[in-house]
């Protein structure tokens, strides 16, 4: 006979007082709603429950479900740190030769901490404000720059750009959107006058055809991918285009494995067939677009046979894709960084905009343009003005009326000159034009192209303040490090890839003496003589919202537990608009901008015969600062790798798991090979997250002329097998 009394009373386990908090996932642009259950005594999160959010309907992925424990990691920064005299002249603090007993992983604290001393908040903040003020007063505002974060809230982004503009005195403020979708935004703003998505992800359920190009949603937008797969099962036909086969291709009606960097040729050929076979929407073209004649003229030169040669896909597949798009009632276009991260990224996006426009696929259910945004708040950070050429809501800094309005609102004179972008800041730091930087929640020493050059720039700075939750690779160059708040400890609003503005709530208490990011920004402003006084985060939101049209009707109260899509005319009775531009575009008519195919500048040659593309894996985020400190995520995905085609592996003498040396004109990394036919012959792939096999030692810093985005998805490298049966012993950033 069996008794259940013991089990029913739950006597066996150790009791823990816990608290459930409704908030958001801190990772990607999908913006999943989640409930975290935290151990209130030990200030740590125990587990996650999916919440019925507009973007996730209770679903989560591995990062949201299991990647929360970075927040209570023992390495959280808990005191302000000031660089010791002995650690000057500045430079990278990690030893160039990594000790063999400590392979891989994030920055080794034992290497860094001895070079810093703990300081009081007053000392640290006075030092930061004093040094920035000295540089500004001596060299002018142009000598200061700020890198904000798309991981922060809208309120933090708003305050950060206000600090740089109103107090530093320049428009040198940018963030990692420059590295992910700057070109998409440039093309969208030029084409329709708005950089945000026209239709939400889940609208794919109403699409006949979805065109997914240069994206890997099962890894990078995993919960969005579940809705895409669901739609595919229910009858939406997916056209998947990529040069590295994504898992979503298994659900595709048609997969086009195109040669890297040839998207413009493909888009032009699709446009060519659509126009040639008269599969276009004449009324839409007439009433809602301009520039069709010129577009038609340009794409005449791109018959499918020509594109087939350039892209290395069969001409009949291009014909078939065009016909699927042309015959469909509703087509939704999704794209990711395989489109945007090219030196012709803006041209890539222009082609997609033209495809949607000439087929009339905007402004209706199941249609539209959706650049899948990466970070949880990259949309919001851009909306809030963390961009060197725009004030909040994409109002140009060089428009005099706009500037006057902001000068009046903020009570200071503002610079009319557009500022420096991420890559330009680093260049200016190297040349000495930028002398001081404030970096909040960014890690350019791993995330930016050609990190050897980034090292030179950061070393050359007269003063660098880094505000973060861990010692990052970038913090190695800091004069002062300010311990800040993680997502799990703050109140704030975040805008997801769908334009849904949602509130995050604190789950944990701040560790040690760490402080809220928004307070620190205000402290620096105040100590530089500019009043930044706010009673609450909600009050900051109100000031931000008042400076925009998109957020004007919203407030923390109006957002409530579920958030709202913007625009939202009546937040009390409506969730906002999941579909925009039904009748017209912000720019009136859409501008069709033709693009000509140009091969990437650094083509493979005899010395560097492979094309390297970088990207991400499901389990990791950006430079791994958070995810590599999550026990679960690190256990599932502990180290970097290079994907190589089986044919190439054979000729290189590489077996699966062997270590290879990958070199470009800018640097080299040693990394384990993973043999897979997901990558095309002649191409290799390395994820960007792993500092000890840092893909960005190799990448090409050349940028797109319009979006100023680097071409992370294309550079020439050589690969050499290295017979070695021990673990990867790497030389980080050598």
């Amino acid at each position, binding site marked *: *006979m*069996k*008794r*259940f*009394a*013991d*089990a*029913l009373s*739950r006597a*066996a*386990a*150790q*009791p*823990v*007082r*816990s*608290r*459930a908090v409704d908030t958001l996932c801190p990772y990607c642009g999908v913006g999943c709603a989640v409930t975290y*259950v935290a*151990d209130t005594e030990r200030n740590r999160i*125990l*587990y*996650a*429950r*999916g919440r019925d959010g507009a973007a996730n*309907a*209770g*679903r*989560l*992925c*591995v990062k949201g*479900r*299991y990647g929360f*424990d970075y927040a209570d990691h023992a390495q959280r920064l808990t005191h302000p740190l000031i660089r010791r005299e002995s650690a000057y002249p500045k430079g990278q603090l990690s030893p160039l030769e990594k000790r063999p007993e400590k392979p891989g992983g994030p920055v080794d604290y034992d290497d860094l901490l001895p070079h810093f001393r703990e300081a009081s908040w007053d000392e640290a903040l006075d030092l930061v404000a004093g040094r920035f003020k000295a540089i500004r007063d001596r060299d002018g505002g142009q000598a200061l720059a700020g890198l904000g974060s798309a991981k922060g809230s809208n309120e933090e982004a708003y305050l950060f750009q206000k600090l740089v503009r109103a107090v530093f005195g320049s428009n040198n403020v940018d963030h990692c959107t420059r590295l992910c979708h700057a070109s998409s935004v440039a093309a969208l703003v030029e084409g329709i006058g708005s950089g945000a998505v026209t239709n939400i992800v889940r609208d794919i359920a109403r699409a006949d055809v979805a065109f997914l190009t240069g994206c890997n949603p*099962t890894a990078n937008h*995993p919960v969005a*991918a*579940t809705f895409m*797969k*669901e739609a595919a*099962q229910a009858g939406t036909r997916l056209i998947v285009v990529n040069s590295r086969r994504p898992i979503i291709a298994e*659900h595709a009606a048609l997969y086009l494995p195109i040669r890297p960097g040839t998207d413009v040729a493909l888009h032009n050929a699709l446009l060519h067939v659509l126009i040639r076979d008269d599969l276009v929407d004449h009324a839409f073209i007439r009433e809602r677009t301009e520039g069709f004649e010129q577009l038609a003229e340009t794409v005449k030169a791109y018959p499918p046979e020509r594109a087939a040669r350039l892209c290395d896909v069969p001409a009949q597949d291009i014909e078939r894709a065009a016909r699927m798009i042309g015959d469909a009632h509703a087509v939704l276009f999704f794209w990711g960084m395989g489109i945007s991260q090219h030196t012709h990224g803006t041209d890539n996006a222009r082609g997609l905009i033209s495809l949607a426009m000439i087929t009339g696929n905007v402004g209706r259910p199941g249609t539209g343009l959706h650049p899948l945004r990466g970070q949880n708040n990259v949309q919001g950070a851009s909306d809030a003005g963390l961009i060197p050429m725009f004030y909040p809501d994409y109002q140009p800094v060089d428009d005099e009326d706009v500037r006057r309005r902001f000068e009046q609102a903020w009570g200071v004179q503002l610079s009319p000159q557009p500022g420096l972008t991420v890559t330009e800041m680093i260049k200016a730091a190297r040349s000495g034009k930028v002398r001081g930087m404030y970096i909040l929640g960014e890690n350019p020493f791993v995330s930016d192209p050609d990190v050897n050059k980034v090292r030179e720039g950061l070393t050359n700075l007269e003063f660098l303040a880094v505000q973060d939750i861990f010692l990052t690779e970038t913090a190695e160059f800091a004069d002062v490090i300010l311990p800040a708040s993680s997502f799990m400890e703050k109140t704030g609003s975040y805008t997801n890839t769908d334009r849904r503005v949602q509130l995050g709530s604190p789950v944990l208490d701040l560790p040690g003496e760490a402080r809220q990011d928004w307070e620190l920004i205000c402290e620096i402003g105040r100590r530089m003589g500019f009043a930044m006084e706010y009673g609450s985060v909600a009050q900051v939101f109100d000031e931000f919202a008042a400076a925009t049209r998109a957020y004007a009707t919203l407030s923390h109260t109006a957002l409530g537990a579920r958030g709202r899509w913007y625009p939202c005319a009546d937040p009390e009775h409506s969730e906002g608009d999941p579909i925009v531009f039904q009748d017209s575009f912000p720019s009136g008519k859409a501008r069709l901008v033709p693009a000509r195919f140009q091969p990437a500048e650094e083509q493979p040659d005899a010395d560097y015969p492979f094309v390297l593309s970088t990207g991400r894996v*499901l389990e990791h985020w950006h430079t791994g600062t958070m995810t590599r400190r999550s*026990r*679960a995520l690190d*256990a*599932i995905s502990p180290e970097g790798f290079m994907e190589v085609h089986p044919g190439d592996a054979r000729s290189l003498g590489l077996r699966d798991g062997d270590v290879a040396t990958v070199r470009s004109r800018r640097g080299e990394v040693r990394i384990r090979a993973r043999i897979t036919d997901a990558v095309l012959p002649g191409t290799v792939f390395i994820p960007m997250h792993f500092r000890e096999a840092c893909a960005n030692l190799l990448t090409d810093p050349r940028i797109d002329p319009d979006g100023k985005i680097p071409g992370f998805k294309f550079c020439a490298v050589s690969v050499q097998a290295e017979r070695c049966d021990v673990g990867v012993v790497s030389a980080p950033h050598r």
Partner: protein
Amino acid sequence: MATEHVSLTIDGRSVSVPAGASIWDAAARLGIHIPVLCHDPRLRPVGVCRLCVVDTGERTLAAACVRPCQDGMEVRTDSEEVEAHRRMLLELLLSEQPDRSAREETTGDDALYALARRYGIREILLPDGGEGTPRGRDASSPVIDVDHQACILCDRCVRGCDEIQHNDVITRTGKGYGTRIAFDLDVSMAESTCVSCGECVAVCPTGALTHKAVRGLRLEEGA
């Protein structure tokens, strides 16, 4: 075109629902929660656990989660026969359960245990089906514990994996008493194509699939 509606009574109360709605959904509208283990509103109903049986006046009891409402139907959800049926099913399921439920002990939301309490079951008079023939565990995943002995083969994880997340990793394998869930072509969870989204843990009603992170911790949720 207006949706067609059907009218019926459940435990003597009238309700009108769109044609095609299940008895379970219709009862939920009336605030009557028919006990169920294999069904969840986010999942396609399959009617495998049979705990949601109700009396429709027909020869046999019907599973409310899959049985569509019909006009004029008179449903009893709590007749003596129905309750005896459920109690027997619970005892059969409990007789094979391991001594401890990793879900009940930690997050305290084991649905089988909750029903055992609701039906006042403290002792199982049936022979212990699990004795000597443990179905085994799979602790290979870094995040998820699998206790096959606690699995009641309700298929919620299979549907969560296939139909919510569309990862198509979990299935069933084996026959008779040895039937259990399996990953891919019956490899360990860690070796499988599982992407650790945790949906299976979220939908599992028992201690079969649980989060490793809370192991050994009895969560007492409060403000």
